[in-house]
């Protein structure tokens, strides 16, 4: 983990970054996914990227506070809809 420079470690860094997005967004093809998951077993920079990118998605999902819907909103909408219906 002490090595932080990743130039030269991965010959296809840009391509990897691109596939990583697809993998994490559930948009990668099976081939791409297979390639990537295999690749990160032997490429430290890409492995680290994978962890960081997944964690960013995790914290977005888990740490962002959800606003409660104002209690009267549904009532107001429903009554306005009934007026027009």
């Amino acid at each position, binding site marked *: 983990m002490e090595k932080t420079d990743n130039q030269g470690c991965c010959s296809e860094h840009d391509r990897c970054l691109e596939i990583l997005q697809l993998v994490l967004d559930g948009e990668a093809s099976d081939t791409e996914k297979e390639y990537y998951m295999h690749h990160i077993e032997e490429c430290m920079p890409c492995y680290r990227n994978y962890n960081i990118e997944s964690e960013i998605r995790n914290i977005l999902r888990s740490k962002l506070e959800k606003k409660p*819907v104002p209690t009267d909103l549904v009532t107001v909408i429903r009554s306005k809809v009934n007026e027009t219906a």
Partner: protein
Amino acid sequence: MIENEDWEPTGQNYSDDEDRSEENRYTNKSGEDDDNDDSGDTNDSDEDQLADAPEGEVTVERYSERQKMRIFDGEFLPHIDAMYNFAFRLTFDEDDAKDLVQETYLKAFRFINSFEEGTNAKAWLFRILKNSFINDYRKKSKEPAKVDYNDVESYYNSEDAQVEMTTDLRVESLRDMIGDEVSNALNSLAVDFRTVIILCDLEGFTYEEMAKILDIPIGTVRSRLHRARNLLKDKLRSYAQSMGY
């Protein structure tokens, strides 16, 4: 699609016919809306966008009043939580978010005949909300209307940026962040970038659904998302640094 050019700061438009025809899936049954007498609504362009079916087709009253209410209650209202949160993350204001959601639902009801029961109601509603936001709120928001995409793009496409991007942000520092920091990082992004992150990461829409919601080709969804994530990572990195990581 006039307003669409307004919305799309890169000036990009449909690059191929595939995207165009795909997009019609949400609106294919609508024609001229039969409700033009609603004088309270000044947003013709938005309605055009919603009802952009091939010319000559006339809206059929495909649903009875009872069916309409059933669809509205059963397929539209269950998404109110996601809708309100999306609206709030766009407007940063509770009252504006409320108005935006209300307006969206009223429009959805008015155009319910162009909605095909059982199809993706959430994506359809998000599309209406996004269009209403552009028409009504974005104009008066203090946010700068345009991001200089060229700057952003060339920066993030440069080798240096890519390398820098992937170093020194650690998983542990991300885990230690509090909600406010994550929220501030997201909120600091320009609205177009913020939107794609919300749609993808918070709401779980697919690229294809996002393309329809935003009226942009899938390729643009991908590149915008990529840029948005890099910008977000930048922000998170500076929080991490200020935390002493």
